[in-house]
């Protein structure tokens, strides 16, 4: 499976809220929806947990480690150099 984004690429997490549309299982934290970050590394491909959780056939999806500026997300308590490093599946990412 060829990753769409290489390390160093700026990406945007989709501002999508499937939990408002019905039962779902999502591994993308709410605090990152609509936020941009940078691909730190490609972690490989894993079966999509959003389908696995419901015992549906689950395709492999590329998983990335994505780095975000922590104070950009939590300005009230943030500190300049700090970062959040989070695993995000490719179908949640767009080129920023």
């Amino acid at each position, binding site marked *: 499976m060829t990753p769409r984004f290489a390390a160093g690429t700026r990406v945007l997490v989709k501002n999508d809220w499937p939990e408002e549309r019905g039962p779902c299982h999502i*591994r993308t934290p709410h605090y990152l929806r609509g936020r941009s970050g940078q691909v730190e590394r490609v*972690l490989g491909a894993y079966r999509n947990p959003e389908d696995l959780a419901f015992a549906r056939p689950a395709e492999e999806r590329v998983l990335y480690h994505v780095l975000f500026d922590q104070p950009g997300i939590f300005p009230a308590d943030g500190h300049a150099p700090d970062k*959040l490093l989070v695993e995000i599946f490719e179908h949640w990412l767009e080129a920023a």
Partner: protein
Amino acid sequence: MSNPARAESIEQLDRLLAALMAKGVVTEAELAAQQASTDRASPEIGARMVARAWLDPAWRAMMLKNGTEAVEALGVSMAGAPPLGVLEDTARRHHVIVCTLCSCYPRAVLGYPPHWYKSFSYRSRVVREPRAVMAEWGSPVADDIELRVVDSTADYRWMVLPMRPAGTEGWSEDQLAALITRDVLVGVALPKLPA
């Protein structure tokens, strides 16, 4: 501390196990083997990996490249376990690990997670105000250090490779391993020399 299991929970578990065995999903032997490997897992495995990394650059490189391979090289089976990633602290960067969505934890190298790791308070606060949380743990982070909060959200599990403390020159692997606690491997504490 957990409360003792309730009689109805035990009965429910027995019924579930009986059904899984009747359907051929698991055997008694597989369950016993899994239980034994779960019980064997403890922070001593992670501590051993770190101590060796402080002493052996080739081991360090291998462990950073493929944590799963490093664990298996210590004779611990990773069959069925999620892949392990190791995050390297430097003089300018420190990592702390959380799972905000549930309680993903590198059980293969740390054993059972402590209660605080699963608490709503730790999980919600450490991404929002990581420096305040670190200070409360007695591990204040200097202003010029980049603190990386690692939210373990999916298929990987993570542990921290901390900096080797000054004053440990010439120490053996066993002496170094004794400095590395569960909390150090999660990143809420830093290795400290005995007073």
